[in-house]
């Protein structure tokens, strides 16, 4: 598969050499500090990820004021709450309801809400997802093992500008009285993209 050419040994070494050469040149010219690159890599490997978005979703499930603020202006609501760190501009939260299921894509490149979900998975950036989800989202959902009622409307948000979208999934039934932390454990990355649903409480081990 084309998205896995990093697994090809001969290809890999050629790429590695080109990356190293570019880093060397940019460092020698003073444009890049390799220790800064180390920090950038560490940030994206360890600091950001879907756990951030999951906490935001769980908060919205338990706090109606936060939920309405989130839907009005997600960047502002998240940053002002002070609970989830600082979030970049133009984040928009879209809420799933029994009538409408939301899905997010970037057909032109791979725009994704990094601040709340981390780096996008390979499938999100791949041609199969980007080509099909705007035309036939139910077949894409089928690839994820998800079937929605035929009457549920599907809204696909194509991230064609610098706006970024976060899906606010529906809170699973049977979670009344749960803590935010426990609720967050149900919130999967895919449920915040729209290709999945939150885990059901019975499926939890804790």
């Amino acid at each position, binding site marked *: 598969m084309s998205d896995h050419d990093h697994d090809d040994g001969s290809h890999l070494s050629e790429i590695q050499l080109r990356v190293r050469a570019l880093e060397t040149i940019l460092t020698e010219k003073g444009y890049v500090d390799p220790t800064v690159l180390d920090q950038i890599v560490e940030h994206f490997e360890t600091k950001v990820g879907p756990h951030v978005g999951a906490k935001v979703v769980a908060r919205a499930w338990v706090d109606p004021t936060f939920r309405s603020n989130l839907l009005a202006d997600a960047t502002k609501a998240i940053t002002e709450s002070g609970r989830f760190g600082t979030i970049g501009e133009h984040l928009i939260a879209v809420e799933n309801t029994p009538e409408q299921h939301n899905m997010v894509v970037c057909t032109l490149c791979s725009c994704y809400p990094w601040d709340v979900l981390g780096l996008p998975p390979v499938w999100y950036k791949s041609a199969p997802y980007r080509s099909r989800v*705007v035309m036939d989202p139910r077949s894409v959902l089928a690839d994820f093992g998800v079937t929605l009622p035929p009457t549920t409307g599907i809204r696909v948000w194509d991230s064609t500008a610098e706006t970024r979208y976060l899906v606010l999934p529906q809170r699973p039934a049977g979670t009344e009285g749960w803590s935010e932390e426990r609720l967050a454990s149900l919130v999967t990355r895919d449920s915040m993209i729209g290709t999945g649903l939150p885990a059901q409480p019975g499926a939890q081990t804790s």
Partner: protein
Amino acid sequence: MNGVHDLGGFHGFGKVEPEADEPPFHAPWEGRVLGLQRALLYTRAWNLDRFRDAQERLPAQVYLSVSYYHRWLLAVLRGAVETGLVGADELEAGHALRPGPAVQRTLKQSAVGAAFMRPAFGRPPPRAARFKPGDRVRTRNTHPSGHTRLPRYARDKVGTVESIHGCHVYPDVAATGQGEDPQWLYAVVFRGPDLWGEGSDPTLTVSIDAFEPYLEPT
């Protein structure tokens, strides 16, 4: 440009294949490429739209056959040369052969947080918005050879303005390095059958974020 990057509506790419427990990077070089991209953008010698444009100008067969970060690398290499920061001869040599041109700023340890933060793209509006929520609009039938953010599947289609995001940097101009030319940005929603014709999912709606020059009143 009408490139293969503009993937919405293509058939034939097969199933979506999620990877279980996917790591952030599949090889260490991928993280370095991301870091180099961030550092280059930070100099302001380059911008995000030029980065995207550089990917789109890759030969179609290359765009489709290399991995995501490999594509980034090819775009970053191109950007490094096209901005004049690096010479093709230096890439060949693997070392700097001369001092580079001055840049506005370089990413230092003290400012590394800026590399993690998305910049703001909103700008003061130069004029009033032409459309308002609820307006019916038709997207232009346009095929520019340069960078644009109006996907082909949504050209010459009738939709409804749902909301106004504000006035943002206009990618079609920013990608040329000729300034920002801020334009009003709208969420425009289309009915599935209006995009895909008879037989399409009647429960489907698709929205794009459309810059004002992409739109005409109906």
